[in-house]
């Protein structure tokens, strides 16, 4: 881990004054220049990015659990292969994101430790259970769909390594979204029981998906500064609106009913208007009282604990190996 202030080169042209540095930094951001790991950056920018990227990485990793729950029960071999590949992709996203966070001077182990002691956040959506096979389609369609809305703007994020990771991730997320929708279409065109399964899943996942965009702009603490730094480019409410506008017609095409009696299309505005979101539920899940918070964290901890002796064995083996190589060199 390094401190930017000590690492910055002390050349005559280097700004000596903190305000001047900040001003130059902001000017680079305003000119749409990418900030790279070795560049000077305000400590608050670095901390904001670490928090956001780590949260995103943890979400990918915890997100493997609800979908992994159906790998052994996928109803066809093709669906099983698609689901394994998807869960594996999410693990890959977690890896790129931890690597992006590491460019900011924080180790993956440190970030994972924060997750395991319950100090780091991850997307609350993964604290909901996957109760039927239709949940797998719904997660692809809605959860990956919402993730794409959130993440497409991040491909233009001011921090280079994060923006580049997001380009790769977004391609795979849109693939997941299409696969999820295709699964839903198969259920919607299937038997009455399959259609009921699809509708039940939409009923349970709709509101939590809307909450994925975070609190309303009026209540969001981080938005203004993050927008100025181009870590965030649209507000929570703007992104949520885009998601609703894109998703409601897709639900109609499936012949499913969005579980919001107040939902209507405002032709003049060209947008759907939705009913009130139950933020008390969002805050309860965020505080740890969602349906699966305990199970998700317990699963991550148990994998970590059960794997401890394995990681120790690999380290011991590598150490012995390095030791004998050194001995060979010395002799």
């Amino acid at each position, binding site marked *: 881990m390094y401190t930017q202030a000590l690492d910055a080169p002390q050349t005559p042209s280097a700004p000596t004054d903190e305000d001047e540095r900040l001003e130059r930094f902001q000017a680079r951001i305003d000119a749409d220049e990418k900030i790279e790991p070795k560049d000077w950056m305000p400590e608050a920018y670095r901390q904001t990015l670490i928090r956001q990227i780590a949260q995103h990485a943890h979400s990918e*990793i915890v997100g*493997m*659990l609800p979908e*992994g729950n159906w*790998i*052994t*029960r*996928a*109803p*066809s*071999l*093709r*669906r*099983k*292969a698609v689901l*394994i*590949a998807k*869960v*594996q992709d999410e*693990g*890959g996203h*977690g*890896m790129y994101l*931890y690597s992006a966070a590491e460019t900011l001077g924080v180790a993956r182990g440190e970030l994972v430790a924060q997750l395991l002691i319950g100090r780091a956040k991850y997307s609350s959506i993964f604290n909901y259970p996957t109760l039927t*096979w239709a949940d797998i389609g719904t997660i692809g369609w809605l959860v990956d769909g919402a993730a794409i809305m959130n993440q497409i703007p991040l491909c233009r994020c001011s921090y280079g390594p994060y923006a580049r990771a997001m380009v790769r991730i977004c391609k795979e997320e849109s693939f997941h979204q299409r696969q999820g929708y295709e699964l839903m279409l*198969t259920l919607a065109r*299937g*038997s009455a*029981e*399959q259609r009921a399964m699809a509708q039940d899943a939409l009923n349970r996942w709709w509101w939590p998906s809307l909450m994925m965009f975070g609190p309303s702009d009026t209540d969001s603490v981080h938005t203004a500064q993050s927008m100025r730094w181009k870590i965030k480019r649209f507000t929570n409410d703007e992104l949520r609106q885009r998601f609703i506008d894109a998703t409601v017609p897709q639900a109609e095409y499936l012949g499913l009913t969005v579980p919001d009696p107040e939902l209507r299309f405002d032709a003049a505005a060209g947008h759907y208007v939705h009913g009130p979101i139950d933020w008390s539920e969002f805050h309860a899940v965020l505080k740890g009282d969602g349906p699966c918070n305990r199970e998700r964290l317990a*699963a991550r901890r*148990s*994998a970590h604990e*059960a*794997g*401890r*002796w*394995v*990681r*120790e*064995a*690999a380290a*011991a*083996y590598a150490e*012995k190996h390095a030791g004998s190589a050194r001995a060979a060199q010395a002799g």
Partner: protein
Amino acid sequence: MSPAAEPARATASAEDRFEYVLRLGDTSLIAAQRLGALLGHGPALEEDLAIGNIALDLLGQARLLLALAGRIEGRGRDEDALAFLRDAGQFRNMALAEQPDGDFAETIVRQCLLDAWQLETYESLAGSRDRELADIAEKAVKECRYHWRFSAGWLVRLGDGTTESHTRVRAALEKLWRFTDELLSADALDARMAVSGIGPAPALIRERWETRVSAALAEAKLERPAQRHYPWHGKRGVHTEHLGHLLAEMQFLPRAYPGVSW
């Protein structure tokens, strides 16, 4: 020597070919089902991703082989009908493949012993007289090489790692070794397939498997367990108790909602 190079041979019956292809396909399928359950619960993210890759490869092999079996049988059963609508007694996988995952050592030992068998079997089958089977084997052998590198690499790290890892991997080896005889002992069907130039020569597979596994055990500083002769016949449909539970979970949806597509 590849089986195809052998002279004068009998023609295999469709029943034999069906049964033989199921042995291969079911072994890949059941191993994939075991590994798929581990995804997201591995000792490190890198291992999760590797195990996911291996599960996907095995599942891909199973799909090709079960589809081929269905065509040979000619009764309209596709890969899913074969995977989801047979009971345990109709499964032809090696009993080793269905053994549950206790700790990571058991997963590694099971995969290692199985990977060595699959690798040698597919390498030989790439020269099979059955063109369709040979094509599948040619693709599978590349995958199995990677699987072996992963499992044998971990066998060595665990065997030559810490005292704890050595103890654990030795216990896993003791537990699973008794299922290796089924892989290597040819029954009448294996012999007929070899004679017809479709299947590999069983003695060759045994010899190559022994060489490969012995080398890995030596590097892992592990002793070869004593052979215990209880005859397992997973490949003839006589399984351990574990397979029924595995299938109950795997087959639940197509059984609960029969006749629909997914």
